[in-house]
């Protein structure tokens, strides 16, 4: 409990700018080639996820997506990469090569020579949370540190985009430029909580060592366990997590103007709404329908779309929810600042 109190009293983090690279091209889910190899029941499950199209650029790797997003964030803020204090890369689902470093590759490409550089991950779409925790820790611990850039390129690990029975993965890059809070910041992350349960560490996995990439498949080792036990644990965990986040900030659910979650499926969004007895921001369903699942990038993408669509306004508080079958859960409390055209979906 004392750790939580210390954590809570730490300074908020400002999101100075968000950069994205969302490919122009899309794939229609109904035309995905992997559907031909599925049973009729599994095919219907895929088609009923609430995803019509996914963003896709087969010519870009996850690294390419992250780099383009990182450059977009720096451009929006007018900040030279050389002044970055830290660069945190959220690991891709599958790196192009092993042993090598996507993080220092990005450092070199950007010219972020003075930055402290490392990678975080291991929690699926929740991995945005340890990136924010690390950034906040760095900013709090070192008064001389400049901006921190968090970047991620989301792309399916194998050739198949459908992960039965969960979601369809799209392509997209996102970068968050973080700094200490100031009045002009368009978004402030006020607080965040994260929990994990290691019993689910390999509930979903992709075997790769003994097979060519064409046979890589994201597989669930225990479908009833996923649909029942983890779902019900999520019900209990998510409610407690949101209550903890709000209560330690002296808030109730009545103070929250909007909730956003990651984009897995229409059923997943409904599950979150029924579990918490809330309504999610309309941007969640809209982005799910158009873009599919973009991993750790989803929640800030949905927040950006909500801001662009004026679903939220300056001064509003919002909660961003992430659930991963690893299993991990996180809830972020954010405050909307003045909008100067630096946030958005572009």
């Amino acid at each position, binding site marked *: 409990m004392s750790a939580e109190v210390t954590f809570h009293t730490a300074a908020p983090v400002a999101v100075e700018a968000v950069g994205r690279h969302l490919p122009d091209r899309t794939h229609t889910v109904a035309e995905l080639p992997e559907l031909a190899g599925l049973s009729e029941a599994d095919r219907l499950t895929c088609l009923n996820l609430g995803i019509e199209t996914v963003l896709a650029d087969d010519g870009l790797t996850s690294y390419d997506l992250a780099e383009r997003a990182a450059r977009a964030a720096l451009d929006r803020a007018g900040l030279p990469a050389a002044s970055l204090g830290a660069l945190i890369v959220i690991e891709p689902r599958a790196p192009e090569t092993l042993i090598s470093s996507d993080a220092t590759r990005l450092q070199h490409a950007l010219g972020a020579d003075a930055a402290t550089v490392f990678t975080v991950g291991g929690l699926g779409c929740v991995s945005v949370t340890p990136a924010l925790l690390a950034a906040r820790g760095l900013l709090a611990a070192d008064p001389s540190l400049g901006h921190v850039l968090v970047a991620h390129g989301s792309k399916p690990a194998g050739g198949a985009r459908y992960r039965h029975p969960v979601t369809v993965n799209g392509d997209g890059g996102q970068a968050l430029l973080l700094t200490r809070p100031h009045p002009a910041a368009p978004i402030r992350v006020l607080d965040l909580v994260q929990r994990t349960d290691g019993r689910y560490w390999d509930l979903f996995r992709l075997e790769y060592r003994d097979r060519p990439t064409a046979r890589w498949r994201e597989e669930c080792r225990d*479908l*009833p366990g*996923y*649909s*029942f036990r983890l779902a*019900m*644990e999520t019900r209990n965990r998510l409610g407690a997590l949101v209550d903890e986040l709000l209560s330690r900030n002296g808030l109730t659910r009545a103070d929250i103007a909007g909730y956003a979650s990651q984009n897995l499926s229409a*059923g*997943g969004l409904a599950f979150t709404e029924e579990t918490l007895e809330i309504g999610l921001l309309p941007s969640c369903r809209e982005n799910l329908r158009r873009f599919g699942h973009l991993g750790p990038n989803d929640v800030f993408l949905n927040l950006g779309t909500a801001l662009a669509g004026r679903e939220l306004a300056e001064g509003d508080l919002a909660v961003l929810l992430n659930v991963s079958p690893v299993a991990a859960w996180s809830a972020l409390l954010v405050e909307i600042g003045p909008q100067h055209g630096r946030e958005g979906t572009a």
Partner: protein
Amino acid sequence: MSHGTGETAGEITGETAEEITGEITRFLTDALRRPVGPDDDYFELGLVDSLFALELVTYVEQRFDLTVEVEDLDLDSFRTARRLTAFVRRKTGAETPDRTRAGDR
């Protein structure tokens, strides 16, 4: 939907285990829109998604006035109407653990 009052499942309505099983079976048949027998494993039949799981657990909690905790989430307790009856009776004190059938925990 009726709600319990803190009494045990049997005491709420004076129902026997078979009557509770019958009620749960009717709930499952309605929720899944297909006939479900007392010993049908609806997980094995692939009929359970997270939304149905939420509906099922919420029904059990509200109807029998109990709370399903994380440590209660043993799939074997929920996979058939008859097993669910045993779980309900165990949770509400109508059936002691040593009277449950092997495999219910």
